[in-house]
Structure formats: C-alpha cells, structure tokens
C-alpha cells in the first residue's frame, strides 16, 4: 500500500516496545459485538493507474462548461483563472498546512490571509474582512445572525432579489436558531421597496447587488432607512467581479457584506468548494464570525501575523461563540488572493469592463431573437430574458444542440409558475462573440 510506510518487521518491533502481541490487542476497548474481523464488503485497494482510469471514466460522463458555449451564472461564474494560481496553491507548504495556530511556523498562511482580508475590504469598500467563510450562502446566514447580535433584535427582512439558495439557507438557520425572517417575493418586474418593511424590531435588511435577476441598484436610501430604525443593511454579492465596475456596498452604507468569492481564482467545481467573503465596519468586529488575522511583532520586534480576537470563536467561547465555524476556505482564499494580486487595480477594473461589455453584446443579440424580451436593461454580466415558453424546456433543447444556455429560473423557483418562462443568462470574458452568435442562432431555432 503506497501510502503506508510501516513494514511488517517494523510493526512487530513496535508491538514489542508497546508490550502487546498484536495490533488487535490495542483495540481491546472496542466492544466484542462491534469488532469486525474481516474487511468490509468494498473493493480492494487499487494502484494509481486503475483509480485514474475509473475516475476519468466518470469525469467523461459530464459536459465541461468550457467544452461548449456556456452562459450559466446564478451565483457561480466561469472565469479564466491564470495558470499561476493553480500552480501556487498546489505548493505543499500551503496545501498541506493546518489552520495557522502556531504563528512562528505559519507566517506564510497568515500573511496571505492578511492580504486577503485587505483585498476584500478594499473591493467591498468596508473597514474589515475576515479570513473567509464556506460560501456566499452560509456567509449570508451568518451575516443575519451577526446583525441579530449587534442589534439584539430577531427579525430580518429579506429581499426578493436574494439568491434562492441563500434565502433557503438563511431560512433554515432562522428556523433552528429561533429568529424571524420576512421574505419579499421574487419579482423581476418591479423595483421592490423594503424601507416600509423596516420597523423598530428589525435587525437587518438583506439585499443583493447585482440581484439574482441581474439588476444593479443603489441601496443608499435603504441604508439610511434601516439606520434610522436602528437596523443594519446587509449587502450580498454573488458575482464579486462586479465590484470592479459598480459602486461597492461600503459606499452605499452597508454594515455587513456577505459575498461569494468563487469568481476570482476558483473553478466552477459543480458548486464547491467555493469561498465566502465577509466584511463589516470596525465597530462590529467583535461580533463577527470566523477567523481573523492581525498584525503584531515578534520577540525581536519584527513585524509578523497571528490569529487574533479568538475569544469570539468556538474553541474558547464554546456555546457562547459568535458562530460554530472552525474550518473555513483557506486554500480557496489563497486562490482568490493570488488571482486578485495578478489582476491588480487595472486588471480587476478591466476584467469587470470586459464582462459587462460581453454581457451587453450578448443581451443585444438575444433580445433581437423574435419572442425574446430583455427584462432588465441595467445589469452587470447577467440578465433575465422572458421567453415565449417555459425556459427549462428551451434549455434542454439547446443542450441537445451543444449550448449550455443559462439557468432557467424555475430550476431554483419550481413553485412559482409566474417565473417559468424566465431565463438567467450570464456572459464573462470567457465567451467569444462566435459563442454568442451560435447561442442566438440556436435559440431562434428552438423557440
């Protein structure tokens, strides 16, 4: 067995040192009835070649998004990841290290997390960010629970434009943790006004920008309305590249930003692992969930980094912790940090402009298809089309022609027949104009 260094001779030596006749004797505390003498009914060990062959066969049963014209978004976006990113995250010193509890031997992890925190704070326009969460959906639920702690209130108002999975995740936490959420209905045709739903029991208002349907809005007035009632504004971002082009939440008065960072540095990977981003104002930092890296000095006075404000966390506070989160998304955060540092100001803004331009071109091409209506004319890199018939069937028909056409809204809102004809379409820098023309032509064919 290639992963196990001990030889039988060594095992016998070690047993002699321990003073037991066999390894089985070391398991003497296991109840007899639960002890298994024989291997389980599973296949025996295999060499690399066989495992590789078997898994490659399964991989071949999928259609990679990059192998066809692909326009899916809805919270996960296909971007080009520079080769440097995947090379560096596979360095064993990063990949096979643990959470940096021993700062003297993990300055590498700590420094990149400090850089990550700074990048996230800069692009969101917030004061401070943590060292990452599982994903955007769980970060959103954590944001609401944090707002509940800050305001000591238990009622959250949720926008109809929040990603349905984020809504469901937040609702699940609300059910079990015992807080209330008031969810506005998803309606891509009206500009909802949540200010009227805020009262003096409201802990926070949760909006998404660009929202699930792709609309970009200014939430400054909503922030003021929330603050006037003592509530917080939580702004969720699905497509983090958008912050290279649109006004960041921090400039609108957001108190907490919960975001999905997958677009920078991380592949689609069927939806995970991705990286949740979480940022807030300085004054709320002690109510923040998750790990934080801080700057300090060592015994010689040299600058260095440590995990800090740990008393918020489960390993110290136990049942009084701000969250039960322990593992985060360290390596995905590293991928984000590397990609973002390669982009820099020029690259990030340029990438955002490119995404917007591609989506804008695509919208024009698709809106020209007879029977197709562009629902929202203001968007970043994703928009909603109204089709003359149910979008799910159209997407299935297009798959047969070799185009991954987008996400039918009904996939995420199966219970809302009024949304059945809507199709979410995203374009990124990876889509060529030829892809777009092919999509438009084939859409016309199948309608």
């Amino acid at each position, binding site marked *: 067995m290639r992963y196990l260094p001990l030889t039988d001779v060594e095992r016998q030596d070690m047993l002699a040192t321990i003073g037991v006749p066999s390894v089985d004797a070391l398991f003497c505390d296991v109840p007899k009835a639960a002890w298994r003498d024989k291997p389980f009914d599973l296949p025996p060990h295999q060499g690399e070649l066989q495992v590789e062959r078997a898994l490659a066969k399964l991989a071949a049963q999928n259609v990679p998004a990059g192998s066809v014209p692909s326009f899916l978004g809805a919270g996960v976006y296909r971007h080009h990841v520079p080769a440097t990113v995947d090379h560096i995250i596979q360095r064993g010193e990063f990949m096979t290290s643990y959470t940096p509890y021993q700062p003297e031997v993990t300055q590498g992890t700590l420094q990149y997390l400090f850089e990550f925190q700074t990048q996230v704070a800069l692009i969101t326009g917030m004061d401070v960010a943590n060292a990452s969460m599982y994903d955007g959906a769980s970060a959103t639920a954590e944001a609401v629970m944090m707002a509940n702690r800050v305001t000591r209130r238990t009622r959250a108002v949720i926008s109809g434009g929040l990603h349905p999975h984020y809504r469901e995740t937040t609702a699940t936490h609300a059910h079990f943790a015992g807080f209330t959420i008031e969810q506005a209905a998803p309606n891509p045709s009206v500009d909802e006004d949540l200010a009227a739903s805020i009262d003096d029991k409201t802990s926070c208002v949760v909006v998404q920008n660009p929202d699930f349907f792709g609309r970009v809005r200014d939430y400054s007035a909503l922030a003021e309305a929330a603050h006037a009632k003592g509530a917080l504004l939580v702004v969720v971002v699905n497509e983090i590249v958008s912050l290279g082009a649109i006004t960041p939440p921090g400039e609108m008065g957001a108190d907490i930003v919960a975001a999905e960072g997958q677009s920078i540095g991380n592949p689609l990977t069927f939806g995970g692992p991705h990286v949740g981003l979480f940022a807030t104002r300085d004054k709320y930092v*002690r109510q923040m969930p998750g790990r934080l890296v801080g700057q300090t000095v060592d015994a010689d006075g040299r600058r260095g980094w440590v995990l800090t404000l*740990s*008393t918020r966390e489960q390993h*110290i*506070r136990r049942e*009084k912790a701000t969250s039960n989160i322990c593992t985060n998304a360290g390596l995905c955060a590293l991928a984000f940090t590397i990609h973002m540092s390669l982009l820099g100001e020029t690259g990030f803004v340029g990438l955002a402009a490119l995404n917007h331009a591609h989506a804008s071109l695509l919208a024009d091409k698709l809106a020209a298809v007879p029977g197709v209506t562009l629902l929202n004319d203001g968007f970043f890199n994703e928009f909603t089309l109204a089709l003359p018939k149910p979008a799910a069937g159209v997407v299935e028909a297009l798959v047969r022609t070799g185009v991954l056409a987008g996400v039918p809204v009904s996939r995420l809102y199966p219970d809302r027949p009024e949304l059945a004809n809507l199709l979410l379409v995203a374009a990124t820098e990876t889509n060529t104009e030829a892809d777009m023309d092919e999509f438009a032509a084939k859409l016309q064919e199948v309608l």
Partner: protein
Amino acid sequence: MSTIHYTKSHEWIRVDGDTATVGITAHAAEALGDVVYVEVPAAGKALSKGKEAAVVESVKAASEVYAPVSGTVTEGNPALADDPALVNKDAMGDGWFFKLTVSDQSELADLLDQAAYDALVAESH
C-alpha cells in the same frame, strides 16, 4: 467609610453608602492573563445580582463578570477601552469596571469578606 466584599466568582465590590464600585480581583486578573478587552455596562443599565454585567477577555480566555448585587449602573470605566491592561496592573484600583447605586443593601450580606475570599483562593491552589 467604605467596605469591600467579594463574590465566589471573583468580583469585588467597594460600597460607600448607596453607591458601589465593582471590579474583578487581582487573583482573577492573574488567572486570566493579559487582559485585552473589556466590555462594561452603560450608565442607566439595571443589573440583577448574579447576572451578567460585563465581559473581560484575555488572548485565550473570555469570562463574564457578574453583578455582585442588584442596582443601576452610574458609570462604566471609560479608561478600560483604551487601556485594558489596567485590569492587570491595578485590579482593585484603576482597573475597576463599573459603579452602581445599590438597590437592596441586604444583598451584601450574602457576599464574602476579605478573610473568606482569601480562604477561597487558598483552597483553589
């Protein structure tokens, strides 16, 4: 003439007539280690005996500070926000947490005097 009382949870309370000052004992401060953060109650807050009144944190530990008696907070120590180390340097003096007006003097009878508290500390060693 002020009198000092102690709790089993290592708070001290110095009483001057109706008003009193509360902090944590030098023994508690030493056990916590270097204090890095203190959250004190705001003036006007009503406290009940034995209930959470403040929070004190070191790098590796966090602890609630309980109200030794019931009363209304008149002042939280503003100096602790900038200099939490005062708790380590002068736990019984400049490192005080909050002042309150005592609502029920009879509650003081349940507290420990110096000798009883010293005995409690000695026992835990």
